[in-house]
């Protein structure tokens, strides 16, 4: 635990000393502010469903920018050798990198809570879908951070890591559109890999154990594989 906290502090410092974190937050808040305002004025309904769907897409696009440097940069700058010859375990290193990236996502989501506050001040929103939407975004965020971290752990090139994770996200975003064209039982198998299929119920206020399980499983699997990628030297 002590090592994890030391490493987390180092990862937070690295993340927030880089302009990427601020650029990502700025873009996120600008796009989401625009989406929130537009949907509110058009629909006149106190709901965040469209905002959550937009956040889902935006996170798919910006998470690769957050995760690409996590291990790839350490590998290319050779600082990974310093870290992996110090008495800290690969698990602690991976967990600290994951937690630091998640902290940026949590921060962005916390800032976006202001939209819910506006709805609460000027309307009577149903908070059920808002809670489930944020829970879905957290679970979805942790899964894609896990995938991005794994991509970064497999290469020393940040651009390759970003492209690999972005391609994976885009494929898993739209894979259900192709999945339905396949014969049984492959259609259901492929459709169930879709990120949007598992996220959509959260945005509309439904929490299914299968969706929670999917995101948690992807997170744990990618973290485990990232540890293996660091341990395999």
């Amino acid at each position, binding site marked *: 635990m002590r090592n994890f906290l030391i490493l987390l502090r180092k990862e937070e410092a*690295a993340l927030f000393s*880089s302009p990427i974190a601020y650029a990502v937050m700025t873009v996120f808040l600008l796009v989401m502010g625009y989406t929130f305002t537009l949907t509110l004025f058009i629909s006149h309904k106190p709901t965040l469903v469209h905002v959550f769907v937009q956040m889902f897409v935006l996170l798919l696009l910006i998470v690769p920018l957050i995760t690409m440097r996590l291990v790839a940069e350490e590998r290319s700058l*050779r600082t990974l*050798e310093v870290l992996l*010859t*110090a008495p*800290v375990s690969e698990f602690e290193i991976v967990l600290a990198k994951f937690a630091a990236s998640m902290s940026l996502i949590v921060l962005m989501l916390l800032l976006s809570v202001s939209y819910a506050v506006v709805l609460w001040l000027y309307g009577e929103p149903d908070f059920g879908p808002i809670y489930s939407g944020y829970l879905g975004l957290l679970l979805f965020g942790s899964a894609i951070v896990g995938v991005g971290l794994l991509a970064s752990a497999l290469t020393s090139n940040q651009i390759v890591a970003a492209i690999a994770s972005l391609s994976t996200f885009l494929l898993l975003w739209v894979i259900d559109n192709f999945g339905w064209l396949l014969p049984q039982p492959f259609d259901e198998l492929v459709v169930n890999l879709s990120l949007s299929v598992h996220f959509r119920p959260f945005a509309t206020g439904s929490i299914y154990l299968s969706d929670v399980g999917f995101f948690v499983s992807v997170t744990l699997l990618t973290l485990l594989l990232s540890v293996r990628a660091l341990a395999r030297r």
Partner: protein
Amino acid sequence: MATVVSAQNVTKWYGPRRAVADVSFAIEPGEIIGLLGPNGSGKSTLFRMLCGYLAPSAGSISVAGHDVVTDSLAVRQAIGYLPEHAPLYDHMRVGEFLNFMANIKGLSGAEARRAVAAAAERLALGEVFRLPTRKLSRGYRQRVSIAQAILGEPTLIVLDEPTSGLDPHQVIGVRELIRSLAERHTVILASHGLAEIEKIASRVMILLDGRLLTGDALAGAGEGLRLGLRVIGDDATVRRVCAGVPGIRSVAALGGEAGTYLVETDGPAAAPALVAALVAGGIAVRELVEGATDLEQVFLDLTQRARKAVA
């Protein structure tokens, strides 16, 4: 005291390429080992295996009694490592970096601050202590990296090219530092700077194409006297005779011409005794040159000979 490092038949493959081939050696407490070899000879790979960063493809290494594969964390706790190219975290200041390294080596609070201050003082980092590491010169980067390696009183200090990028004054300082480290630590350092190794190491190992060529002691390198010896006679007899002469520390056959040796002695008094003993033993002495050759010559001869043998 127990052996600090014990390597048994260590081999490392990178795909089809063998970087280290069947290397065995032991390092005793307080030794300063110089690992000498040209670029690409496997020095850094061997060091990475010593520190638990790479796993050997075959063979075993134990450091301070812990196996580098099965007990990697204990090995890493016992080691201070300066990697090649002195990598540092660019977003940190020098003090922050040293403090971070002290913390992950298990030091905290006042203990960490004391260790960092002591390391910074030994490496003369006061001037740059608050500077971001990305603004450091090559020499300072090297010194900061050495400072992190000595934090936490490690049993074994592994230094890959410790004087690389330093100016002559700094080289002398680091040389003194390494000698002083041997009072409390065991040190192994790699270099292709032959003169450097000769000045620091108490024992030299030469690595060529992944193979360890010699583990001969260069006891008191820089003191004593080296003799270049050309004789006509049987190799075993030459060695037997030399072993019986007082003041002879070691005898190493050199490549090229047969019957050519580098003899390490305690001083000039050993030379006449050696000639007399060789003649009495039926060996014809063709030439004896005081200080005629040095470690560089040994290195070049050994590496040439090994390459010829492989060819």
